[in-house]
């Protein structure tokens, strides 16, 4: 017996896989592949952030801080200390998880605006440290990051590869890798949501009082989801660093944090597929509106505000509801 949740998640995963693997049919140059790869990595980040914001109802305006820490840990360990990519990603994610736990415990007691301010401060502090530790990070000028390597095998945008007889250039190979990463990120998030832990998380959002009287240690679960979402950000930051080949403290900055949260809100808080759509739309928008580049942050702010006012459920849930209503109407009309 499949319950409703399991049917939905299976459907979502299949749809996502079909889109991700059909997309190359429409991508005809490396520029689009690179854009799609960025989208997938950012989308996986916001899938993690959505666990905190959409499902547990806690805000983080500093999540780029964790993304940046992952990116820089990878950058520093692989280029200065000769670490391989996977250990750097994993150790970085664990360290960021520990930092998130230490920071999260006290600040997640706060609610509403106070929590927003505290998480904002966390992001700022991380960005400032990355800016100031010139010896390690190269400061505001940034630092180069070597290509992603596993067991001596190198994934570089400039390489060429052979997958099951298909000739792939570096951009195509990176895209496929990022697509698989996104699918895994979604699968893990779904597993978390549809579980005792996931119900406890959602109850913190639904009714914190109810959660407490049925025995949920709400403080512990808030910290837990904060850590999980920080680990998502860190791991994706690591991949992002490899893919870009060069990082600056901007990856940990305020603009990035706002971008992430806007993706969640626009796409649909609490909808995993929704936030992926949010990521796609907000990565595409600057391409379409290339003339307004200086106004990017203003634009994201405006989108955030307008979404909250006119479409509080977010893009995908609103579309799904409208489609559902129309189908009902049609079915009703014919009966």
């Amino acid at each position, binding site marked *: 017996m499949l319950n409703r949740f399991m049917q939905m998640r299976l459907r979502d995963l299949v749809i996502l896989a079909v889109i991700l693997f059909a997309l190359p049919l429409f991508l005809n140059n490396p520029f689009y592949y690179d854009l799609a790869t960025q989208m997938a990595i950012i989308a996986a980040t916001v899938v993690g952030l959505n666990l905190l914001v959409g499902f547990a109802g806690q805000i983080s305006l500093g999540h780029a801080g964790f993304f940046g820490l992952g990116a820089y840990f990878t950058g520093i360990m692989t280029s200065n200390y000769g670490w391989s990519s996977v250990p750097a990603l994993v150790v970085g994610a664990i360290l960021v998880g520990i930092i998130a736990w230490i920071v999260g415990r006290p600040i997640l007691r706060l609610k509403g605006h106070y929590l927003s301010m505290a998480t904002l401060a966390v992001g700022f502090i991380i960005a400032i440290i990355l800016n100031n530790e010139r010896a390690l990070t190269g400061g505001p000028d940034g630092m180069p990051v070597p290509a992603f390597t596993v067991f001596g095998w190198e994934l570089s945008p400039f390489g060429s590869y052979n997958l099951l007889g298909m000739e792939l250039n570096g951009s195509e190979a990176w895209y496929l890798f990022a697509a698989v990463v996104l699918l895994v990120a979604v699968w893990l998030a779904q597993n978390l949501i549809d579980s005792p832990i996931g119900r406890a998380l959602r109850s913190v959002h639904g009714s914190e009082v109810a959660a407490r009287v049925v025995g*949920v240690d709400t403080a512990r679960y808030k910290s837990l989801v904060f850590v999980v979402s920080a680990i998502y950000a860190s791991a994706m930051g690591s991949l992002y660093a490899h893919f870009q080949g060069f990082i600056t403290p901007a990856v940990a900055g305020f603009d990035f944090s706002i971008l992430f949260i806007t993706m969640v809100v626009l796409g649909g808080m609490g909808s995993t597929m929704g936030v992926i759509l949010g990521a796609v739309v907000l990565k595409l928008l600057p391409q379409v509106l290339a003339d307004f580049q200086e106004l990017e942050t203003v634009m994201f702010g405006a989108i955030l505000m307008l979404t909250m006012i006119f479409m509080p459920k977010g893009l995908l849930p609103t579309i799904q509801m409208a489609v559902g209503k129309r189908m009902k109407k049609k079915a009703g009309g014919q009966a």
Partner: protein
Amino acid sequence: MSALIEVKGLDKAFGGVHAVEGVSFSVEAGQVYSVIGPNGAGKTTLFNLISGLYTPTKGEIRLKGESTAKLEPNQLAERGMCRTFQQMQICMNMSAIENVMLGRHLKLRSNLFTTLFRLPSLLRDEKACRERAAELMEFVGCGDYLDTEASAMSYGALKRLEIARALAADPKVILLDEPAAGLNAVETAALEKLIRKIADQGTTVMLVEHDMKLVMGISDRLLVLNYGRVLAEGTPEEIRNNPDVIAAYLGG
């Protein structure tokens, strides 16, 4: 043997308002113990104190002899206490059955690893949990709503759902705050049966209710509060014949 719940000299003040003042009583295991009194008498505040949501200004509450002063609501839940609310507390971001499965939170042993990779042990536990939750929803009379979103359910169904959630923890004592409020006569009759069934299973029930017929019929003992103070305490028979209660209720 001490009583299941012992309350001594309990006080709760909000600023200048004494919502509960000098309240003492005890509840034996297996009883149906009701708290009655006019609106604003302090009944909900008393429940909030007993379930650990409020800390007393003065006085003491003991659960099976243990002082609850330092215990959080979730720790009281671990000791077998569960409750429903006058202002229903349902997670509207979940389906009906998930709300009940949430009630079983403390019975589930899961860790991040088995969860993230959906290992067989987790699936087994989830299946058992879902079956138990479905059983309970049947028991309280909302078995038709298993996978309905909570936000799409009627008020009466949600009231029963909240009871199912409280029962899911296999509690030793369940606190029901005005479960009949807003229900029609048929629903109230069904509720009375349900409370009897819960009590017959050996669960101690504390009940706040305005429906006198329901309360008098079902309770082993009653506590009457008025302006935060105890007006009377005793069996339904004693309460019915108590001159203070008669005076207060019949406009003395």
